[in-house]
């Protein structure tokens, strides 16, 4: 702290003061040294962050206040007009709603199914090790691969899902071309993709719950349902919080799957916010609008993460 340093103009009074001053100067030297190291250590990452994060962020904010020409250069200043136009546009509102539906469903279903699988795998049964491996298998499948084979399954005439539907006597479903079903299809695929990792986290958490707690509960005659709600759930709540945060954020970031499966269609039903930014910037070449959308998305994610930490952190037992 520069402010706390003694001014060199202040003359010391007497030998004692002189000693004090040398001590202070010494400590100052050390501090100066610290500073040098601080810059040395932080410098590279600050440099990288500036180039790849801060500058693009500010640039995005800047672009969102202009109209951009054919080359993506800002030419006409319009202030907040891009924002007002966007927030009034029906298709953007629809995208917001679709993103909300998608993110919440993905997060909820991932937690439910992940926990279910983990609870099943936590039983001591013969050959359970095999299932434990199988349940984590989706971790090894890339987005593009899973999109391709889910696409096969969703194929309206040749896909296995419609064969099942027909076998049950229903009309075949146009999975990816009916707005409602397309959302279901995309959510199902995403949940499936997230499941492996979520399972692993929950399984780890379940294994870490001390057995003595259950023994004590057994002794006092608590039912297994009571044990689940009052021992298991509180004990794994930090993991649950973690899973909720990461699935929510990765839900917002979903891109590859949308691009490969629906391309944002039909009728923009799966045109999620991130995909929209990409489409407007790199396909439609409308950088101003894409920047505006990016800023709004950033604000939304910031708010949600903040709220999540405030609300959930209170209910989590660490």
């Amino acid at each position: 702290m520069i402010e706390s340093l003694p001014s060199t103009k202040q003359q010391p009074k007497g030998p004692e003061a002189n000693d004090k001053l040398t001590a202070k100067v010494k400590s100052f030297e050390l501090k100066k040294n610290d500073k040098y190291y601080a810059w040395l250590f932080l410098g590279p990452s600050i440099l990288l962050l500036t180039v790849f994060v801060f500058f693009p962020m500010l640039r995005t904010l800047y672009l969102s206040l202009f109209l951009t020409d054919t080359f993506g250069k800002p030419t006409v200043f319009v202030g907040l007009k891009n924002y007002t136009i966007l927030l009034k546009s029906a298709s953007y509102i629809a995208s917001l709603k679709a993103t909300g539906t998608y993110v919440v469903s993905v997060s909820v279903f991932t937690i439910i199914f992940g926990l279910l699988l983990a609870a099943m795998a936590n039983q001591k049964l013969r050959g359970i090790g095999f299932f434990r491996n199988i349940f984590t298998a989706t971790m090894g499948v890339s987005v593009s691969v899973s999109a391709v084979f889910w696409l096969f399954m969703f194929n309206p005439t040749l896909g296995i899902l419609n064969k099942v539907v027909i076998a049950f006597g229903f009309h075949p479903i146009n999975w990816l071309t009916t707005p409602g079903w397309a959302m279901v299809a995309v959510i199902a695929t995403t949940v499936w993709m997230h499941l492996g990792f979520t399972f692993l986290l929950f399984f780890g958490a379940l294994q870490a719950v001390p057995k003595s707690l259950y023994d004590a509960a057994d002794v006092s005659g608590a039912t297994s349902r009571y044990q689940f709600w009052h021992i298991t759930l509180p004990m794994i709540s930090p993991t649950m919080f973690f899973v909720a945060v990461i699935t929510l954020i990765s839900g917002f970031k979903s891109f590859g799957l949308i691009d490969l499966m629906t391309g944002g269609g039909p009728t923009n039903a799966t045109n999620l916010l991130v995909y929209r930014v990409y489409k407007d910037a790199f396909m439609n070449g409308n950088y101003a609008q894409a920047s505006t959308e990016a800023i709004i998305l950033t604000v939304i994610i910031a708010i949600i993460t903040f709220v999540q930490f405030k609300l959930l952190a209170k209910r989590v037992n660490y």
Partner: protein
Amino acid sequence: MKKISQFIKRYWQLFSAAAVILVIGLGVFGYSRSQVHDASGRTRVVFWHEMKGPGQKKLVTFINEFNKSQSKYEIVPQFQGGYNDVIQKIMNTHGTDASPAIFQSMDISTSQMYHSGFTVPMQKFVDKENYDVSKIASVARGVATRKGTLLAMPFNTSQTTLYYNAGLLKKYNITPPPVDPTYSDITRVSKQLYDRSNHKVKGISVESYSWLFEQFLSNANEEFANQHDGHTGISTKVNFTGPTAIKSMTWVQDRVKYGDFMNFGSHKNEMAAFLSNKLGIYMQTSADMSVLAKGLGKNLGVTYYPRPDGVKANGISVGGASLWISNDKSEAVQQGAWEFTKFLINPKNQARWEKATGYLAINQDSANEPILKQSYEKLPMLKVPSDQLKSAKANYTNSGIFVDGVVAARSLIQNAMQQIYAGKDVYKSLKAAEDSYNKVLESNNLANGWTK
């Protein structure tokens, strides 16, 4: 462990410095790779293309042949992904060493490339050598022409075509549609197929793809945008609600209502259903031809793109892409790019191109090449798309849309098409797309300084 962490602590700066140098070094290395001359002193001509599959294979063959055929130039192909990506890449790399000497860019980017001022008009080379461009199909040139000046050279050219499964038609005893069909000709076949197969076979599919919508307008000589589709000036308004737009979309919606129509969601699914005898008719690029002919052989039927009843076919514009020569390279490099262009569009190579890929030979003399003659004799329907191409005389409505940012218009139209397929009102859906795009056009024109 402690030793390691001490070691890392001591030499941390060194590590970070090394990392920074590595990153910068890699960048510089990548940057300097597009140099002007190769080892043997030939002029390097970097060529950006977006061909995949059979197209890429054949293109690489052509490039190798060209490089062997002479010793002055070396074409260096670089695959750049999709058509949309390339536009952005060109806009962002022009004037740097990373930009190409010659590149392939799609039909609807013509206006944007023209306005960028980043390219040399092909006309310059054509005039210098008195190259006879009249051999190149007139609608193909039309898409790359501005007020009589040829801006780019069409290369991989396709047109929308109607395919039908002649085997299925025979099975259910249905008279095939004529070669230049109207909407009601197609309706008849589609309905009969659906009814006579006890609803097991779907009659028709029209992908919710704006290109198909645009061709409905072209074929009926209806303008998509004012200023004659942008060919005579800057368009300020679009028109998605003209008589043909309404007529064509209502036609498709009627098919949806009747049940003989199915929306397969993607070109791939459509093709799969068609090849597995679950779909009778679909309309897509003529480039599907090679795959379909392989799958169905003599059971493949092909006609021109349909037209409204009582309207004479105006001909449709071409899709695919053209070759553009950048103006940020030396004269020698530009000349090399032109030599390569001539090589690609000569009659023989265009004939081989059509045979290998299903893209249409744009050179009128290609039809006399033995390779095409033979395959036309074997499967006469292969010739239908190229007849369609030749039969059209270029005018404003069948020469593409000379408007910046048609990509954005396309996604709006596609959205409207999906709404129409889902049963929404035809006029309202198209009107909404029209209004939204008019706003885009207005702000785009404003941003580019094209309004007073």
